[in-house]
């Protein structure tokens, strides 16, 4: 019995790889977009100048407070009521971007605030304006603090992307869910799903550890 199921599973392997492609694509797009959004919001949050810092704080709190599942339902089911129809893929990408952006903004804000005041004061004394200070003095230093947790956040992003399967996007998890209806061997099917996620996430986790060690070594 088991070897029949196994053969069947081997037949649906291309489907799993397709799912892996979808997972990689949707997380990749949201990774880039989320990073841009997060860096922007993080800077606005840390700078406390345009009165936007409070709003950004609430944005981060809101996203940290609600589950991703509820968030994606809100994007997918409630936006259409306001007239914005989205098919599953863009809805998933937007939901992930907005969600990851909030976490990244926290990381970026913390990184910027960790730079000693003196740096900014010295840059001001050199006659740099606010943009130049951020661009040439503060941000390059903050990146060192930001990078390790940022890569850690990417791991979370890839894992959260499994939840987009509930709105019908055929990522790895959904392929597993569909397969388990035909092949009732949950352990094998979701073991395979787990392995595929592992292949993506494990290197990222180690990259994060590596960056952390490298940076702490350099600063000491």
């Amino acid at each position, binding site marked *: 019995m088991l070897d029949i199921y196994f053969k069947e599973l081997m037949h649906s392997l291309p489907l799993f790889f397709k799912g892996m492609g979808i997972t990689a694509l949707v997380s990749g797009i949201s990774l880039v977009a989320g990073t841009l959004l997060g860096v922007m919001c993080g800077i606005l949050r840390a700078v406390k100048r345009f009165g936007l810092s409070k709003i950004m704080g609430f944005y981060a*709190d*809101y996203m*940290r*407070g*609600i*589950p*991703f*599942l*509820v*968030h994606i*339902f*809100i994007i997918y*089911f*409630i936006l259409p*009521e*306001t*007239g914005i129809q989205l098919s599953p893929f863009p809805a998933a990408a937007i939901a992930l971007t907005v969600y990851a952006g909030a976490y990244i903004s926290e990381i970026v804000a913390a990184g910027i605030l960790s730079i000693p005041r003196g740096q900014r004061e010295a840059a001001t004394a050199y006659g740099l304006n606010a943009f130049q200070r951020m661009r040439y003095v503060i941000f390059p230093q903050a990146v060192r603090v930001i990078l390790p947790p940022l890569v850690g956040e990417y*791991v979370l992003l*890839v*894992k*959260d*992307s*499994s*939840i987009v*399967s*509930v709105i019908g996007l055929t990522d*790895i*998890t959904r392929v*597993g*869910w569909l397969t*388990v209806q035909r092949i*009732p*061997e*949950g*352990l094998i*099917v*979701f*073991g395979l*799903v*787990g392995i595929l*996620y*592992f292949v993506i*996430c*494990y290197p990222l*986790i180690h990259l994060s550890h590596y960056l952390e060690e490298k940076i702490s070594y350099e600063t000491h």
Partner: protein
Amino acid sequence: MLRYFNFRVIWQYMPLFLKGLWATCWISGISIFFALILGIIACGMRLSGRRFLQKLAGIYIESIRSTPLLAQLYFFYFGLPNLHIYINEVETGILALALNSGAYIAEIIRAGIISIPSGQTEAATAYGLSYFQRMRYIILPQAIGVTIPALLGQFIVLVKDSSLVSLISVLELTRAAQRLASERFMPAEGFFTAAAFYLLIYYVLKYLSNWWQNHLIFMEGK
């Protein structure tokens, strides 16, 4: 168009939401309890210095941390019956949540223990305390104090993750919202109400975490 927000329906469904809120709270509470035990055991194994135990804990932590909770949940939900283990959905959910959080908690506690200066261990050893006594009386009391904010952060994550058990048809906050959305075709009312309840839990836990951090600073200042 989202012309109006129907509070009457929300009020009508309030008993369901409160039931869901209660379910979310107790499922998370039980899960964090077991996760703490698991985390302490896994962390102890990892720091024990025994090769085999270290490997075992390492495999557990790494495999949990690099796979999504949803896959783990389905793994148990669809997989356990194959092993002739029949438990209901709530228990499956708690099992998956506890195992998932346990791995993260192990890492949090490990970070806390590592942050305790090695002089503490050396002094305790000089006093003739055994490994267990050192952990119990010297290291853990200090480590737990430092890790409480991170543990509360993990608890927030766990509460949010518990929304996933709605996908294996456990009635909790998200499921209640889905019910309202599908019975009355009012997704906005349903999901925003659920979101508001989650935010409430989040702010309570965040407040606790901040309070504890200030408390710590106050204690260290003395």
